[in-house]
C-alpha cells in the first residue's frame, strides 16, 4: 500500500488550511480524507504530484471552504438568534456611544447617560455574546484563548475609558490593565496564531498595524497634555518671576541696610521685615522639597540649579502635595505668615496690603483629596506669592526711607 511521507502530509495540511479551514477537528478529518483519496489514486499508478493535483481540483475552488461553512452553519444554527441579538446590540451601543460623544462636545444634556448605557451594553452584553458565539464555532484551542484574552482586555479598556470620561475612580488602572494586556498578550497571540495558520497576509497585517498606530497616538494624546508653545510660555513666566524676586530681595536688603544706618528703625518695621524674610525662606524651601519629592534621584545642587535656571528639567511631572502639608514650616504656616504680614502692613501704614495671589490654588493644595498635582503650577503659584510679598515690602520700606530722609 502506498504511504505518504510526513512532508507530503504537511504540504497537504498547508494546502487545506490555505483554503480557509480554521476548525481544528475538521482539519484532521479533511487531511485524512484527502490523503486517502491521494493514496487510492497512487495505487492506481499515478505519481504523487498529479494525484494531489487531481484530488484538490476535484473539490473545486470553494469546495473545501464550503465544507467548513456548512459545518459552522449546522453547529451554530441554534445560536442564530444569539448572533442576531449580538449584531443588534453591537450596532445600538455603537450608535449610543457616537451620540454620547456628539452630545458631550456640544454640551447638551444626556451625554453621560448615553455613554454609560452604550459602554455597558457593549461590554456586558455584546462582548460576552461575541465570545460565546466564537467558542461555539469551535475554532481551535489557541484561537479560543486569543478571543478570551482579547474580549476581557477590551472590556477593561472600554470601561476604563468610560470611567475616565465620567470621572469615576480606578479609571487609569482599568485603562492601563486593558491596554497592556491587549498590546502585550493579545496582539502577540493574534500574530502567532495568524503565523501558525499561514494567514499572515494583508488582511491580518493591516488590523495589526492600525491597532498599534492607533494605540501609540492615543497614548501620546493622553500623556502629552501641553503643547510645546504653552510649556514655553509657562517657563518664561517662571524665569521672569524668579529674576524679579531675586532683584526685589536685593533692593529690600539695601533699603533695610540704609534704614538701619540712617536712624534707629522702628521695631514694628523690623518685625515686618522678619516676616517677609521668613516667607521668602519657606517658599524657597517648599519649592525645593516638592521638586525633590518627584526627583529623589537628583542631588540637592542639581535641584537648586534646575529651579533657578532649567525649570523645564523638573516641571513636567506631578509633585507630591503631602510635602506642602507638613506641620512645621509648611503651607499652612506660610499662609499664616502671609496674613500676619498683611496685618503688620496695615498697622504700619493704615492701608490694606491687598496682596494679589492665587489663594484658591493654595487652599486646594492644602485641603484637596488628591495627592499629586503638576509640579510646575505649584512652584509657579508659590513663587508668584513670594514676588507679591517682597514687592509690597519694597513699597513699605521705601515709604519709610522717604519719611526718614
Amino acid at each position: 500500500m502506498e504511504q505518504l511521507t510526513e512532508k507530503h502530509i504537511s504540504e497537504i495540511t498547508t494546502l487545506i488550511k490555505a483554503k480557509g479551514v480554521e476548525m481544528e477537528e475538521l482539519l484532521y478529518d479533511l487531511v485524512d480524507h484527502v490523503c486517502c483519496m491521494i493514496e487510492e489514486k497512487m495505487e492506481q499508478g499515478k505519481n504523487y504530484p498529479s494525484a494531489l493535483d487531481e484530488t484538490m481540483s476535484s473539490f473545486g475552488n470553494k469546495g473545501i471552504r464550503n465544507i467548513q461553512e456548512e459545518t459552522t452553519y449546522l453547529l451554530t444554527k441554534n445560536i442564530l438568534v444569539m448572533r442576531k441579538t449580538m449584531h443588534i446590540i453591537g450596532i445600538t451601543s455603537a450608535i449610543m456611544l457616537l451620540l454620547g460623544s456628539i452630545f458631550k462636545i456640544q454640551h447638551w444634556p444626556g451625554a453621560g447617560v448615553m455613554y454609560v448605557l452604550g459602554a455597558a451594553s457593549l461590554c456586558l452584553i455584546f462582548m460576552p455574546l461575541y465570545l460565546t458565539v466564537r467558542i461555539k464555532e469551535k475554532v481551535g484551542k489557541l484561537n479560543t484563548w486569543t478571543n478570551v484574552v482579547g474580549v476581557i482586555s477590551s472590556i477593561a479598556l472600554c470601561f476604563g475609558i468610560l470611567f475616565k470620561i465620567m470621572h469615576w475612580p480606578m479609571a487609569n488602572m482599568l485603562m492601563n490593565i486593558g491596554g497592556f494586556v491587549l498590546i502585550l498578550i493579545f496582539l502577540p497571540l493574534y500574530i502567532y496564531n495568524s503565523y501558525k495558520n499561514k494567514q499572515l497576509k494583508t488582511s491580518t497585517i493591516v488590523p495589526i498595524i492600525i491597532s498599534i498606530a492607533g494605540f501609540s497616538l492615543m497614548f501620546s494624546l493622553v500623556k502629552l497634555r501641553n503643547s510645546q508653545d504653552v510649556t514655553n510660555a509657562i517657563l518664561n513666566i517662571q524665569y521672569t518671576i524668579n529674576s524679579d524676586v531675586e532683584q526685589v530681595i536685593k533692593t529690600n536688603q539695601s533699603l533695610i541696610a540704609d534704614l538701619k544706618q540712617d536712624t534707629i528703625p522702628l521695631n514694628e518695621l523690623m518685625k515686618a521685615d522678619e516676616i517677609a524674610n521668613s516667607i521668602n525662606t519657606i517658599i524657597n524651601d517648599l519649592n525645593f522639597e516638592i521638586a525633590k519629592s518627584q526627583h529623589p534621584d537628583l542631588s540637592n545642587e542639581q535641584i537648586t540649579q534646575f529651579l533657578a535656571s532649567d525649570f523645564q528639567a523638573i516641571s513636567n511631572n506631578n509633585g507630591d502635595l503631602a510635602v506642602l502639608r507638613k506641620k512645621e514650616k509648611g503651607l499652612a504656616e506660610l499662609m499664616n505668615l502671609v496674613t500676619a504680614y498683611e496685618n503688620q502692613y496695615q498697622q504700619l501704614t493704615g492701608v490694606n496690603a491687598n496682596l494679589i495671589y492665587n489663594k484658591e490654588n493654595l487652599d486646594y493644595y492644602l485641603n484637596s483629596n488628591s495627592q499629586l498635582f503638576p509640579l510646575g503650577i505649584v512652584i509657579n503659584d508659590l513663587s508668584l506669592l513670594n514676588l507679591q510679598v517682597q514687592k509690597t515690602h519694597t513699597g513699605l520700606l521705601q515709604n519709610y526711607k522717604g519719611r526718614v530722609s
Partner: protein
Amino acid sequence: MYICLMYSKELLKGTLKTIILKLLSESDSMYGYQITQKVKEITEGKINLTEGALYPALHKLEADGLLTTEKIEVGNRVRKYYRLTQTGNNDAKEKVEELKEFMETLKTIINITPQNLAWSN
C-alpha cells in the same frame, strides 16, 4: 442507466443522518473516507456521499452527543474514528424504523394509479 449513477441532493438530504447512523451501528467505528467508500460499495456507486455533506453531518451528530471520536495515528497523520454513543445507538434504531415506515408510505403514494383516484371515475 445514467439516472441511477447519483440521486439528487434533495433526496439525500433528509436521509443522510440516518444513513450514517445505520452504517456506524453495523460496525464498531469508522473514519470519514471509509464511510464514503462503504456507501459507494453497498449502493454500487448509486449514492455518492460527498465530503461536503458527510463531514458537516458528522460534526453535527458529534455536537448533539450521538457520536464520539477517537484520534489514532495512522501513517504519519491523525485519523478520526467515529463511534456511536448509547444515545446514538438508540437514535439509530429509531431513525431507521422511521425511514422504513416513511418508505412504505412513499410507496403507497408513488404506486397510486389513476383508477384508484376517486375523481377519475
